[in-house]
Structures are given as C-alpha cells and as structure tokens.
C-alpha cells in the first residue's frame, strides 16, 4: 500500500500541532479529552468519544474515497513561485520549501483521477497541512485544470476543501483564483456533468466564496467549520459572543447551504450513490467487481506510518 512507503511523517498528519510525547495519546480538539491514538486511527481518524473528525491529508482522503484506495495523481508538474517576493517573518520562498518538505506535496491541492463506486471521476483534494490549505496560483490552476479535464472527459468532478482561504503571500493573484476557479466551475456546469463539493474542517473564506460553494451537491463532514469570515473576525467586528455551534456544518445545513452532512465512514458510499444517481441514463452501470471493490474499500481504514 502507498502509505507504507511514506517516510518521515511522524504525526498522524492531521494538520494540527498535536503534541504526542509517547505517541500513545491524542488530545481531541473536539472534546478536549485524551483519546488513545490507535483508536482514533482505526476509526478513520474520528474521535471515538465525540465524533470529531480530525483533519486528513490529501493522500489519506484519496485513499478513503477511491475504490481500493487506488488513483492516479495528475497535474504534478505545477509548482508555486514567489511573484511578489513576499517576506514576513520568513521568505515565502523558504516557507514553500518547508511545507513541500513537510508534506511531500508541491502545493496545497492534489488532483487525482480514479474510480468511486466504479465511476470514473476527477477529484481535487486540498491539504490543510500545506500553509493552511490556502489557495494561491497553483491551487487555483490545478482546480481549474481538474474542472477542464473532467469536462473534456465527460466525467463528474469532486472537490474536497480544507482551507483557510486565499493565500496572502501571493496577494491579488490569490484573490483572482476565486474568479478563475468559479469560472471553471461555471464552464464545467455547462457541460452537464455533476460537481460535488465536499467541505471538511475548516472550509472558509476565499475558497468557500468560490468553487467550494458552487457544487450541484454540497456535502460536509460533521462539525466542520464552514463559513466566509473566520469566527474571530466576526467576534471582533460585532463585539459579542457567537452563538453555540455557529458556523458548524450542521448550523450551515440548518440555514440552507449544505445538502448533506456525512460522517467520514459513509462518505465514499454517499459519493458513489450520488455518482450513480446522476449518471446519464444510457451509460452502463459500473461492473460488479468494481462495486465489490467499492464495498471492500469502504471497510479499509486510513492509517499512517506509525501504525505499522
């Protein structure tokens, strides 16, 4: 399996700085309880106590949703540059190198082609570990290319967001990726193919105000933070406490902007069902082996090097 080959990732790749001195216990950001790390990992990285969905890396998400965890990564030739020569506490250039080394990714999104429930799909998965899953030129270009490829191949498109928004270090070029990806979604929409947007924790700001909110169907993981402005900004602006559960996936669903809140263990099944429902009537149903493969993969769980 692919994950056995991965070296150098010592933590469970949740994208959060969780200190685990002995590697046995995790502090769950959802309930604050200490949970047995192995138990979390065996549970698709979902807290067994409070059902908090820990962040997954992009490869982990691909492994979770594709049949047999198999997929082909595409658009791997795209790399970020530093068009503004941006420096804060570090040079953007150095920051990029650090995150590339840490995540083994070129930027914050992974484009993959594969099958879900036997149906061919294009998937763009964001990875929060890479600079908070922020969208700069490369993310915008890759998501755009994924839409274009899916349109050309007449197959559905799925995006999985896990992002803090546009990437400041590329300035206005990042903001324009919102226009670019929304335009790609619009053009893809004209091809008559299905676009499913999955929102994982957190899904906010520039990505939310562009392609991630434009799915024909919008699915979210339980308790994921979903919104435009960050809770801290809102609190500072209005100067009062935010209501309980504000901007959670369930809250946003209640207000009419999310179709389905789906637990991680059901995500693959739900995506497969959606693909089947929206498949053109004359198209052949996926063959049985593929469907079997789908149900087997359903039982597979996400794991990491530390599990070996």
């Amino acid at each position: 399996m692919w994950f056995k080959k991965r070296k150098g990732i010592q933590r469970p790749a949740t994208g959060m700085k969780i200190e685990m001195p002995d590697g046995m216990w995790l502090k769950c950001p959802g309930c604050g309880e200490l949970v047995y790390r192995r138990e979390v990992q065996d549970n698709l990285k979902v807290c067994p106590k409070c059902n908090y969905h820990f962040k997954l890396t992009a490869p982990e998400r691909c492994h979770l949703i594709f049949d047999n965890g198999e997929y082909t990564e595409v658009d791997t030739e795209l790399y970020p540059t530093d068009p503004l020569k941006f420096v804060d506490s570090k040079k953007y250039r150095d920051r990029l190198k650090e995150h590339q080394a840490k995540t083994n990714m070129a930027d914050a999104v992974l484009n993959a082609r594969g099958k879900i429930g036997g149906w061919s799909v294009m998937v763009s998965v964001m990875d929060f570990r890479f600079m908070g899953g922020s969208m700069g030129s490369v993310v915008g270009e890759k998501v755009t290319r994924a839409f274009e490829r899916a349109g050309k191949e007449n197959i559905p498109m799925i995006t999985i967001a896990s992002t803090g928004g546009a990437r400041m270090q590329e300035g206005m070029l990042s903001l324009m990726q919102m226009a670019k990806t929304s335009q790609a979604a619009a053009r893809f929409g004209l091809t008559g193919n299905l676009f499913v947007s999955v929102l994982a924790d957190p899904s906010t700001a520039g990505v939310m105000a562009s392609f991630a909110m434009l799915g024909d169907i919008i699915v979210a993981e339980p308790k994921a933070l979903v919104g435009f402005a960050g809770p801290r900004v809102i609190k500072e602006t209005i100067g009062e406490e935010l209501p309980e559960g504000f901007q959670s996936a369930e809250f946003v669903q209640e207000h009419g902007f999310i179709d389905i809140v789906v637990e991680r263990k059901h995500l693959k099944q739900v995506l497969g069902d959606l693909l089947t429902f929206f498949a053109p009537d004359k198209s052949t149903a996926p063959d049985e082996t593929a469907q079997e493969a789908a149900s087997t993969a359903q039982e597979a769980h996400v794991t990491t090097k530390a599990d070996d």
Partner: protein
Amino acid sequence: MPREILDFERPIIELEEAIAELKQAGDPQYRDRIQAYHKKLKRLYTETFSNLSAWQRTRLARHKDRPYTLDYISQITSKFVELHGDRYFRDDPAVVAGLAVFRGRKVVIVGQQKGRDVNERIFRNFGMSNPEGYRKALRAMKLAEKFKKPVVCFVDTPAAYPGIGAEERGQAEAIARNLYEMSILKTPILVVVTGEGGSGGALGIGVGDRILMQENAIYSVIPPEGCAAILFRDGKRGPEAAEALKITSVELKRLGIIDEIVKEPVGGAHRDPALAASILADSIQSSLDEICGLGLDELLDRRFKKFRAMGCFVERKHKKKKSSPKTVR
C-alpha cells in the same frame, strides 16, 4: 473645507490656506509672497504626490472626502433610477444598483456605497455588503443581460460584512454565485475600482471584461492591517504589509490584474471631485466603446481567457515522485 486632512496633506493645505488669506487681503505688497508660496506649493505637490507609498495610497483610497459611487453616478450619468432589494430578503444599502444613461448609452450600474456622515455611514454599513447586497447586484446584472445593456460596477468596499446574519444568509454562497454568473454573463461588464477593493467583498462585483482602477485606489486580498496582524503578529505594521501585498494600481497593472489606471487630480480624487469624475467618465466611455463593440462570443471568450490566465506558477518537467501513490489503471 475638507473634513479629513491626512498628515502628508497638511503642509499643502496649510500653504493653500495661507495663499487664500493673502489673496483675500488684496494688498499689492503681498504679490511677491503669493508668488513665492505658489512656487513652494508646486514643489510640495510634486514632492508629496509623485512617489506615494502603498500605505499613503491606502489612506487616500479610504479618505473620508473621496467621491463615492453615488457621487460618480450623479456626476457622470443622467436619469438614474435606483433599484432596491434582492427579491429574497431585503434591500442592502451598502450596495446601490440602478439604471442610468451614460453619455447617451443606457447602462446598468452596480456599486458599493459608503456613507459620508456618521448616520449615513451606519446606514450604509461602512460600505460592507451583506449577502443580499451581492444578490441585489446579481439581479441587476441579470436584468442587464436580459435587456442587452452593459453593466458598470463601481468597487469600493473595505470587505464583505463579517457578521452573524451575513453568515446565516450565506455570504460565501452569495459571492461565489456572483463570480460564477459574472464569468458567463451574456453582456459586457466594466469594472471600476474607485476606492477600496477589499478582498472577496470587492471581487463579488469585480469580474468583468475590462478592469479599470483609479490611480489611488487599492485592491487587496486582505486589508493590510489584517495581514499584518496575522503574518507580522502586529496589526500596527499595516504600512509594511501594504507594501508587501502589492495593492496599488501601478503594481496591479504590472501583475496583469487590472487593465488600465485612471488618473486622478493631483493630490487625489477628493481634491477635485468634478475633475476626477470627468477623467473617469472618459475612461469608462472608451472602455465601453471597446467592449460593447465586440460580438457576444468574442466578448465571453476574451473574458474567459482573461481570468483563465491569472496566476503565477512554474511547470516543471514531470519527474516521478518517490512516494507518489502507485498508478493503477
């Protein structure tokens, strides 16, 4: 008399006042002094305004006396009929939309609107729209599409409003929907950034065939103060962030984000609003002449290519990453 005088404007305004006083006195013995002051004034203007920093431009863009959308509308168009409401929830005063005649051409206008005095500022929510503002804008644009009129968008907002109600009513969806629809709207769209281009809040009415930007306007992915608070851990380092983010018209022209810089009167649009409006009107007219002259297919194709090309990245020769997942086909 301006209501707000920025520190770098002060020496100029004081000198101007001194000249006015001397002139009013009408005594011929002051003639030499007036002449000397005029010389000094000219020098001061050049020194101050020929090389403004990004932060100084930010402050001009936010100047309390800067002309706002409705000022431009009243100066450069006639027969303006304002349309209200998004037909879903309510009318958002932070966005104005309406029908107007601009130099003989019927146009649909959409723009963010700030307020002048305290009460109006609150009424306009400081130019920060709620979702219904974006939806009102889209309704007006759809109307323009149906009746084949060009759209002119005036961008001037600090940000989309970050509030509880805004989130509950889908701020993200409202902006995303506008980006989606504007990218394929079947009528010419001209965008003019006149003041603050505040992030997604600005872009929500900022997709178009041609993007104009006034000389001292700014357009940024995040307010400089916000960027400083996050990246420099100090909100007071806004001036540095403003520089780093490349938010001025000159920088954005260079980056290919905007198409044209629209000159302002020396010292900024607020020093001579009438002149600012007439310069802007000329640019709007030539831009509209250009985009309205295109066939629909060409128009949409050009708009597509314009935004498709935005971004800066490298393509490296493909080399198989050691740990990339196994390809199974």
